[in-house]
């Protein structure tokens, strides 16, 4: 990065700012450090998931949505394989990145590791051991396009009695504490600009230096740091994916979850603009419908201490094909707002399918992803 990335944010005192006096170089350094901490160190846990025990396909496929952001070079991917009855269960895992249209993207594994490229064999821990090692690899994503949503595709192939994955995670790796090599999409402020006696000049739209750069990186940090990802993935096939066949059935409980209760998820809304503001998220679904009719997907948001708000989205039909969509049947973005009015800015999120008529098709959902949409 253009500036050392601190592990703790700098502590600025406003008292040092005197009206009518110019700002000292120290302030510029603190802006650079504060933004570097936000952009380079407060990286996002993209997803953390455990797979329900009843979804124990031997060779499952999962998808995780990820939006590339500037400066991030590596994703840390960890998996825990699920052992079957065999004493030495094992299988192979292939993790690849692809666009929502299924076009493969260029990535590589750090140190050329083969653990997650589909060629190495991974063991699943025995059920009689409490020790549960996580298999971790680092995926180099520096060649991906900033701002594009990719699907990270996990394909587990059983080779000896394993039952797929017990859990998996994807995390952004923080930027280097001190890195003299700047990439072409390097975020942050060049700390050299903030030296004493060096003018921090305005810059232009084509040469966004100086104050222009500061304002631009404020916007980057506001929109992307962190860019929360609230997502659930299950096996993408018509046996194990959440599916809906009846009016008001709930995709996360119908099959195979089967508890009779719809899981609630507690989250904290980001309140950048005070308690009257909301925190927008873009909904992305991977789903399949059985016919040309349109299912309706509902996100219910309840601020702690408040009343529920339902967001209903009529989905485009997919007629037997798996699709990834962020837009509804009318091609409008599926946007959900988390309120900041709940106690401690907290709220609950629930997912439902709503079948308004008997002609509503059977629908399978393999990925529910809410990604923060601060603009």
């Amino acid at each position, binding site marked *: 990065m253009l500036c050392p990335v601190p592990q703790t944010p700098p*502590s600025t005192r406003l008292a040092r700012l005197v009206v009518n006096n110019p700002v000292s170089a120290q*302030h510029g350094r603190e802006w650079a450090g*504060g933004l570097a901490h936000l952009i380079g160190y407060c990286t996002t846990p993209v997803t953390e998931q455990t797979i329900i025990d009843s979804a124990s396909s031997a060779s499952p496929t999962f998808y995780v949505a990820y939006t590339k952001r500037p400066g991030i070079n590596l994703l840390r991917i960890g998996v825990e394989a699920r052992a079957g009855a065999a004493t030495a269960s094992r299988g192979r895992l292939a993790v690849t990145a692809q666009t929502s249209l299924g076009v493969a993207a260029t990535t590589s594994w750090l140190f050329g590791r083969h653990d997650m490229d589909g060629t190495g064999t991974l063991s699943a821990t025995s059920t009689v051991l409490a020790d549960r*090692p996580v298999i971790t690899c680092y995926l180099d994503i520096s060649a991906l396009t900033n701002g594009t949503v990719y699907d990270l595709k996990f394909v587990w192939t059983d080779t000896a009695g394993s039952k797929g994955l017990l859990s998996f995670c994807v995390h952004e790796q923080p930027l280097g504490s001190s890195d003299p090599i700047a990439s072409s999409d390097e975020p942050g402020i060049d700390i050299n600009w903030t030296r004493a006696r060096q003018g921090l000049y305005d810059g232009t739209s084509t040469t966004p230096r100086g*104050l222009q750069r500061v304002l631009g990186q404020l916007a980057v940090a506001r929109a992307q*740091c962190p860019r929360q990802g609230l997502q659930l993935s299950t096996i993408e096939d018509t046996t194990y994916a959440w599916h809906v066949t009846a009016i008001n059935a709930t995709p996360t409980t119908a099959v195979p979850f089967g*508890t009779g209760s719809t899981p609630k998820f507690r989250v904290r809304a980001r*309140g950048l603009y005070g308690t009257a503001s909301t925190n927008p998220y873009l909904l992305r679904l991977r789903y399949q419908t059985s016919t040309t009719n349109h299912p309706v997907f509902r996100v219910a948001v309840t601020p702690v201490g408040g009343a529920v708000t339902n967001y209903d989205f009529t989905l485009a039909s997919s007629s037997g094909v798996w699709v990834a969509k962020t837009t509804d049947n009318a091609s409008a973005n599926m946007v959900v707002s988390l309120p900041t009015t709940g106690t401690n800015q907290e709220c609950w999120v629930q997912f439902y399918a709503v079948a308004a008529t008997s002609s509503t098709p059977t629908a399978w959902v393999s990925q529910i992803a809410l990604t923060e949409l601060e603009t």
Partner: protein
Amino acid sequence: MSVIQERGYSKYIKHPPAGSATPLANGDTIDSGIATVIDSNIGTMQTESCRQLVFSLGPGIVTALDYTNGSPFAGIADLAPTDAGHAPSQSVVGAIPWDRRTARRFGPFYAVADRDPGTGGPCMRKVVMEMNVTMDVACTHSDFYFLLTTAESARDIADGNVLSFAHQSLGAGVSGQKFITPASTNQTGAGDALTVTPTIDASLYTPTFSRLDTTNGNAESLVFPYWVWFGYLFQSGSNYVDSFCAFETR
């Protein structure tokens, strides 16, 4: 609340986007008004940079383990016998084996340190944790455990690697959906948080990769990795763990 950065305003102040015509011309000094807005906005973003750590479904139906007739440790080959010396209902980290029947683990997360208001040193953020369960009225007793630890393995949890720990119990006759948090067995209000005190131990920072460059050298970052564990034990009945949530808070 930890001290992060003094804020002049309680919210983010919108400013002209980069690339627009700003009121400052080249050669002008930046005055304290603009500097205050920039300072305050960075402080606001740091305050609001709390991250959702866990947003996951649970394992679903959980096998009941009757600890009055047989220890949940039975059949686990790699735990020391002393671990089984606690009744599961006790509030100690060694009360359950933390295996896949009784626990789920998430992480490692790289802690984002704020500043402790007393010492000014790095201070780990509080973490709200919640388990969403569906209880069978036939369940005679259940226990729930919340753990922040530097231990990746269940075998290491009792070895002094605990950052924060909490335990909750439910008795007989409870049915339906419950929201279990470190301080409540049906938390319908704001979630309560596990607090790590007093500060992050600097000796536990470890380097991790940020970029691999065989020509110019690799870049690394120093991080404080920790794990979030949820433990559960149901004595009888058909009970479900529906979801897990954890997030940083103020």
